[in-house]
Each structure stands twice: as structure tokens, then as C-alpha cells.
């Protein structure tokens, strides 16, 4: 049984280095979709998420879509328990496995195998147990002898394979993924999708942020469109994707999604 419930969650991002003028200027000038405000100490705060309420239950595959800076990654980090909300509450039952950034958490000087053991430890799996599962992980990645080489020699797609295989080696109850997944090739994406479908059938929750509408429509059944840190649309994935396309066409999404995907 897994469940995630967010009630009126807001996240304020303090930009401390904003004290320097140039960055402040830069921030205000860019097309950041968050809402800039100054707090009492003249620090810039970005309200990255505003009053987000949502509930996810077994079998939900949620897509997060929206322009760059709409709050997708922040919401993923709140769901992963990395960021504590500034306001509101989050309740989550279930073992969370998060894949937020490919390079992050990979020790690039260590070999693929060493990284399997290390990433496993961060997921709470002891080295002995992880060594037992290493064979299966290696097989899934299809990286072969590359696993004995330092990760710094890997291509982005190879890192995706490795990270994905490790993070999904034990069935996660709540799997949280950011958009980098698209670095994998078509064959791997198909394989990854089958694995995730297996999990979701066994009542896991998937939350995926992506700019690729094809990927989102194929992988997810529900969707949330984020705009300026707010939920602009929520519902079946096809409806939300349509809402996003209308938004892009009307030109109010300043950042073209194609460029970012």
C-alpha cells in the first residue's frame, strides 16, 4: 500500500547569493516562471510552489509537465522528502526511490560496479545484499565490461542505464523521476517502461517530470500542468497534455518545450 498526500504545500526558495546585485538583475531578467519577491532581509525568495494539493494512490502514474522553472523539479524534491515544505503538509507511505539527476550520486572515479554498491547503500541496502543483486543489475544495464571501468568514461545514455537499473533493482513503492530519462536510447526506454509497468501493476506510484509529451502519454495515466508553481490543470494525462499544448500555442509559456527536451 503506497500513498502520497500533499496539502496546500508551498515552497519558498531563498536565493542567498542574490545579495550580489548582478545575480539579482540576472534573476529578474530571465524568464524564471517562479514568483520573485524580496523578504525583510533583502534576500530574494522564489516561491517555487504555491498551495499544491494532490493525492496519489496505488497504480497512479503521474506526469508533471510545464515550462522550465514551473516548479516540476521542486515538486519532485518535495515528494522525495529532500525539501521540507515552507507551508502545508506532506504525508507519504511507501519506500521512495528517486532518480532526480543522473550524475548526482554517481561517484565518477569509481567503477560501475562500485557505484552499484554505493547507490544501493544510499537506498538503505547493505553491501552484502547489494552484491547479490549486482548480477541482475548488470544484466539490465547491458553495459558488460564497462561496469569495471570508471563511470567518468560513460556516455550520458550509459549513466542513465546504470542509474535506472540501480534505483529500480528493488521494487520501489514510490518512484520519482526527473526528465533526464530521455537520454536513454529507444531500446532502453522500452525496456525501462516494461519494468515500470510491472511495478505499477504491483501497486507502486510513479511520478515523472518530462518535456517529452510522447513519453508522458505513453508512461502515465494522470497529469499535472504546473505554471508559476501552481497547478494549472490536473486530470487524465491526455487532457493535461492538450492543455499544455494550448498553453504553448497561445505563447504564454515563454520557454519553448522543444528546446528544453
Amino acid at each position, binding site marked *: 500500500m503506497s500513498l502520497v498526500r500533499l496539502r496546500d504545500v508551498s515552497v519558498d*526558495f*531563498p536565493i*542567498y*547569493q542574490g545579495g550580489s546585485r548582478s545575480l539579482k538583475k540576472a534573476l529578474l531578467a530571465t524568464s524564471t516562471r517562479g514568483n520573485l519577491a524580496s523578504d525583510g532581509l533583502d534576500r530574494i525568495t522564489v516561491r517555487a510552489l504555491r498551495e499544491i494539493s494532490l493525492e496519489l494512490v496505488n497504480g497512479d502514474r503521474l506526469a508533471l509537465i510545464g515550462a522550465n522553472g514551473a516548479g516540476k523539479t521542486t515538486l519532485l*524534491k518535495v515528494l*522525495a*522528502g*529532500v*525539501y*521540507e515544505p515552507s507551508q502545508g503538509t506532506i504525508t507519504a507511505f511507501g519506500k*521512495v526511490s*528517486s532518480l*532526480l*539527476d543522473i*550524475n*548526482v*550520486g554517481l*561517484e565518477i*572515479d*569509481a567503477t560501475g560496479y*562500485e557505484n552499484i554498491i*554505493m547507490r544501493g*547503500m*544510499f*537506498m538503505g541496502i*547493505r*553491501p552484502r545484499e547489494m552484491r547479490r543483486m549486482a548480477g541482475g543489475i548488470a544484466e539490465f544495464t547491458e553495459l558488460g565490461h564497462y561496469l569495471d571501468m570508471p563511470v567518468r568514461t560513460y556516455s550520458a545514455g550509459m549513466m542513465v542505464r546504470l542509474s535506472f537499473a540501480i534505483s529500480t533493482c528493488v521494487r520501489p513503492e514510490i518512484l520519482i523521476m526527473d526528465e533526464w530519462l530521455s537520454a536513454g536510447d529507444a531500446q532502453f526506454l522500452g525496456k525501462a517502461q516494461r519494468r515500470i509497468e510491472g511495478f505499477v501493476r504491483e501497486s507502486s506510484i510513479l511520478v515523472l517530470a518530462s518535456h517529452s509529451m510522447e513519453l508522458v502519454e505513453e508512461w502515465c495515466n494522470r497529469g499535472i500542468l504546473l505554471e508559476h508553481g501552481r497547478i494549472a490543470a490536473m486530470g487524465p494525462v491526455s487532457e493535461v497534455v492538450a492543455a499544455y499544448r494550448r498553453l504553448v500555442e497561445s505563447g504564454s509559456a515563454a520557454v519553448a518545450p522543444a528546446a528544453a527536451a
Partner: protein
Amino acid sequence: MALALGDLAEGLRRSWLWAALAQQDLRLRYRGSVLGPFWQTLTTAVMIAGMGFIYSKLFRIRVDSYLPMLALGLIFWMFVSALVTESCTTFTAVQGIIQQVKLPFSVHVYRLLYRNLLTLAHNFLIVPVVLLIFPQPIQFWRLLELVPALALILVNGAWLAILLGMISARFRDVPPIVASVVQVVFFVTPVMWPLAALGAAARWVELNPLFAMIDVLRAPLLGVSQAPYSWTILIGMTVLGCATAFAFFARFRHRLAFWV
């Protein structure tokens, strides 16, 4: 408050995690060298031998009393100064992990302490050799003092890692400042030169907290008594430091993920 305590306890419970990570740190640091972490031991040994003979001539001190003092001083200095400087990167060095998985923050603190303890253990191999070649009037029961001394220093390392680690994550110019201060302190700390050489001015030098840390470890191994205030300074520093760091941790722990 309870959450901060919980973090510290939960981190302790994951000893298998930080112990393995600390070992991995050392393995990666010395990857590709035949000697592994013993490379560090060899470097320290060569430095002690070289400096021991030359500086004993410069200071006109007999090498059999100068070299053991220098050896122990340097080994313990490397330990405590690394605790201070590495404190600054407790959290920023593992930014990727903090941003990706929810873990007790204290795991990173314990990892740092254990890594430095392992490094000290490697360097410490030099000590019995030096003491065999240049025997000192050691009273063996006094070696027991090493236990509370090391324990207190590790506790100090813990609060430093929490406090400096958090401050450095928030203000990025802190680590270079700390590094420069530590470098300057090295020259005013009796590591390379004997305290007695200062005469009456020695009592000011004795107030240096880093000297207090080195002194409580070094004195029993040289068979001399500690400077009068070393234990007091160390204990006082532990109490004050822990209180400050804990208050800070309890207050700002939830912001740390945004700082790194």
C-alpha cells in the same frame, strides 16, 4: 529539537553506511597507487625523518628528544587540522546526495569523523617505530588518557562539522577563510618547535585550542605532563561548541537542503 536529536540518533544507527563510505573515500583517494592509504603513512614518515634531523640541528636540540615530539605533533596536527578544514565541506561535498535522497544529515558528519580516524590510524603506525628508536619515559597507565582525549576530540570534530558545515553551505566564502586561519595557526602552535623555547610567553600559546587538542594526545606518549589548561580548554570547548552547534542544527536543519 526532537527532529535534530532524531537525526543524530538515526545517523548513528546507520554506522554500516558511513563506515563503508569513509572506507570508500580512502580507497578512491589513493586509487592507482600501489601502497594505497599507506602512501600517506610513507609521506608522513619521510617528512618526519627529514624535518626531524634538520630542525633538531637548527634548534640545537638533541634529535632523540626533538624527533618524537615532532612526529607526534605533526601526526596529531594533521588529524585535528583536517577535522577543522574538512568540516567546511561536510555538506557541500555531498550536495548531490542531499539533493537526491533523504538521509539523516548526521550520516555525513559521522562519515567525515570516521574517515579522519582511519587516516590517523594509518599515520599512527609511525609512532611505535619512532618510540622504539627514541624511547621516551612513558608511564603505561597514562596511555589510558588517550581514550578520553580522542573521544573528546571526536565530539569536537562532530560539532565543528555540523556548525562549520552548515555555515559554509550558507556562506560560501567561509571555507577559504577557515583554511587560511588554520594555516596561520599552524605556525603559532608548538608542533615544529618546543613550547619551552618560548619561555614566559609560552602561557599565551597554551590557550590555543588546537594546541590543547594536540597536547592531550601527545603528552602521555612523550611521558610529560600536559600544559595546565589543556584539559580545561578541551572540555570547555566541547560543552560550548556542542550547545551552539546543536541549537544551530535544530534551528536550521530543515533549510540545509536549500543551502547546499
